[in-house]
Each structure stands twice: as structure tokens, then as C-alpha cells.
């Protein structure tokens, strides 16, 4: 299990255990944490699962594939630490990961 801290745009924090193999997006949805829409259910087709990843974690998570990179390019409010949370697979090494949700997913 990896502990992941999700921070809503309004600052509200949720710390939950997520099973390795699930995505960071699924960790939020399964734990009823608001702020991630995930319309396409993780197919990397909608860009409504955008999160900002804690800077110190950027180097520890798998790098982006081309599809994620280009989908993100067209999302709102993208920063250097933006990711699509459905494309981040949870592993034990991500124990302690912090992600923040954007103001809106649309």
C-alpha cells in the first residue's frame, strides 16, 4: 500500500492508502475524493484527471508517454508539474506522494 495525499483546490487534504497497480486517479475516485472527473475512466482520452504533482516526486514517477504529454498540452492551467493522474501507476515507491487538484477539469 502507498499513502497518497490528495489536496483539493480549496486546500482540503485527504490522505488515503492506494493499492499498487491502481492509478493515482483511481485512488481518488475509489476514496470519494472530489476534484478529479476522469470522464474516460483512465483511457488517456479526456484530460479531466489533471493533477499537480509534488515537485520532489517528479523524478520518482514514471515519465510521461507521448499521448499524455500532448493531451496535457491542451488542458487548462497546465504547469511544469502537471500530470494526468490516470497515467500514474501507484507503486510502493510512491508511498507519501502528494498531488494537488486544479481549479476545474473542464
Amino acid at each position, binding site marked *: 500500500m502507498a499513502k497518497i495525499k490528495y489536496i483539493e483546490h480549496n486546500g482540503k487534504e485527504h490522505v488515503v492508502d492506494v493499492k499498487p497497480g491502481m492509478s493515482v486517479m483511481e485512488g481518488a475516485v475509489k476514496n470519494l475524493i472530489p476534484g478529479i472527473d476522469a470522464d474516460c475512466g483512465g*483511457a488517456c482520452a479526456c484530460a479531466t484527471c489533471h493533477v499537480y504533482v509534488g515537485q520532489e516526486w517528479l523524478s520518482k514517477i514514471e515519465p510521461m508517454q507521448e499521448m499524455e504529454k500532448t493531451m496535457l498540452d*491542451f488542458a487548462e492551467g497546465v504547469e511544469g508539474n502537471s500530470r494526468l493522474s490516470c497515467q500514474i501507476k501507484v507503486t510502493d515507491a510512491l508511498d507519501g506522494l502528494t498531488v494537488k487538484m486544479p481549479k476545474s477539469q473542464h
Partner: protein
Amino acid sequence: MTDSLLIVGAGQAASQLIASLRQDGFAGAITLVGEEAYIPYQRPPLSKAFLAGELARERLFIKPEEFYAEAKVTLHLNTRATAIDRARKVVTLEGGNELGYTALALTTGSRVRKLPLPGAELPGCYYLRGIADVELLQDKLKAGNRVAIIGAGYIGLEVAAVAAKHKLKVTVLEALPRVMARAACTELSAFYEEQHRKAGVDIRCNTKLEAIEKHGSALAIKTSGGIVEADFVLIGIGIVPNVELASAAGLKVDNGIVVDDHARTQDPAIYSIGDCTNLPCTYSTTGRIRLESVQNAIDQAKHAALSLMGKPKAYNEVPWFWSDQYDLKLQIAGLGDPGDQIVLRGDPTSRSFAAFRLRGGVVAAVEAVNAAPEYMMGRRLIAARAKVAPERLADKTIPMKDMA
């Protein structure tokens, strides 16, 4: 204010309606009636990762069970609604129980179209719509098995891709001259046909079916192009909207339950959302359409929620859809029409390209293969009804971001 909402049909649209309403502070009671044994789940993986055995069943559910408890939804699963009495505002359930409502949402989705062919009822012939269907198929997915897929639409081709990856011998039988004829342009059809052929799939277009017969422990499909032998058959020839409850209750039905751009039927107490509806659509040349997509189920549900909350906003989102076959992600936005001018951007042999559809010079649709910028920017251009010169769209040296 609505004090009790009854939702019939526990799928993609229903789960979004509940989520949007509770998020907006809807205080009324919510009851959800669903015929299947499951809480709402996603269907797209059924012909993709779930079929391939790469996704555990629990990951199909759109929201976890606790979501419905937390949202105070009374669940009646394994329960079919059989009638609506609009005068008494009551829905009858299988077995005779009745549930009252002040507002009713029909989110009954669609069911597979049955193949009207002698032998199509034989054991060994399958369809694909729900979890139960996939569970029947999964143990047939063994290397060396022969599968005949009837219908070269998205579902048929996605199953063909999964089966080819599992080293089955795959034959696809299609009546029309090309694959994905209903939703894709000819350029895209040709590209996908070639990709499947390269993966060893035998694609036979222009093929008329005569009968399916038992042949020892296998099946023989008699076609205009000869006999195809298979260990099992998968039929994917489209869907039929579940409109019977609505039409029996006297609601207007015309290729779907007729709704306005707030998902309202002509009865002010009854909404309808998702695959089962026929809705106004400004992106369609006919002005109305029935859509079969996650996007429509989600967006229409959001607008129904706004209307139920007394904050109505007309639904006018650009339709979008995706399909995964092999390592190819197809993303489509907008709606095609046979008269469209097709503009290709990128070279299909690079396996990353897009076909734009222009209608009167306006970007009307995009079909993008492994080409997210074309798809994402295309969606914006379609929504803005933007005019873009075909030479510019086709010019890969101009980034998509500069097309606006």
C-alpha cells in the same frame, strides 16, 4: 424542488447524474433501479483491457459501493422496471412492487441488435454488452482458437485486435464495402483495415451472410464468399435503444426517447439521458441524433442535473469518442457527414495522423490516430465553428495550437 428522484437504469448516465446532483447540493431522496447485478460500471474496457484480462473486474466500477451509501441512494439492483404510470407518478418493478417519484430519469441505455440469421441462436454465438458477456468470452480467448467476428464496427474491431494479440485465428465479416463505415472516413477505414491485416486478421468486406450451422464441435458460417469455420462467433452489429418503458407510457419515441437540450421528455417530470435518447444536436446535419458514447452520457447527465436543480443550461457539447486497437488510439470529435471535405494531416504510414472534416469550410469533425494535438485542438475548433483553410490544416509545420 424535487423531493424524490427515481432513476431507472444503473449505468454510465445514472452514476453521473447522482454525482452531479449531490455535488450541487441536491437534497431530495434518490432511488436507483438497475436490471443488472452490478452498480454502474464502464463498458469501454469490456472490448479492450478487461476482455484482454489486463484489468481486474473491480476496476470497472465507475464509483465504489460506498459512494452510493454516502450519497444516500437507495439501490434496487437485479431489478427490472416494467411500467411507468405517469398519472400516478409511479414505476412498477418486476414482481409487482411500486416506487413513487416526483422526478423520474430514464437511463436505460441500449441493448445489442440481434443478428437475424438462421443459426445465429446456436451455442457458440456471442454478443458483447455487459460484464456477463465478457465472462463467457474470456475462456474462449485461447491461442489457436478460431473466431469469426460479424460486423466491423468499433466493438468488432476492438475484439479482433484483442483476439489477434492472444494469437487466435481471426476472421471479420462485414456486409459493407469498408470497416467502421458508419463513423469514420474512407481514409481511416483503409488505414485500420491494413493494420488488422498486418496483425494477421482476415478482413472480408462486402460479405453477405447466408446461415450459421453446427459443424462438429465448431460452427460453419456460410457467406457469399464461401464457408468460414470458427470455434466461436462474436456478433457486433450495433445496438437498439431501450425505449419500450417510455413508449408504453406514451412518451414520444423516434429512434430514441425524444428529449430537449436539457434532457427533458415532453412530460415535465421525466428526464432521459444517454444511449436511449434522441437529442437535439447542433453538430449534426439533421439537427437531432442518438449518440452512443460515454461523453454523451456524462454531459447530458450534467445538464439534466442542472435542470433538476433549477439552473438549466442548454446542452451543446461537441460529441467525442475513442477506440483502442493494438497500439493505436483513435479519438474522434464532432460528427461526420458523407458530403464533408476530408483533409489529411500527417502520413498514415507514420501511424500518427488525423483526418479533418470540413463542411462549408468550417471544421466539423476530426478523426485522430495517435494524434492528441489534432484531436484536442480539433475539439476547440469544432466548438468555435472555426473556418480553417485546408492547406493550413494539412501543413504539419504549422503547430495545431496556431490553427485558431
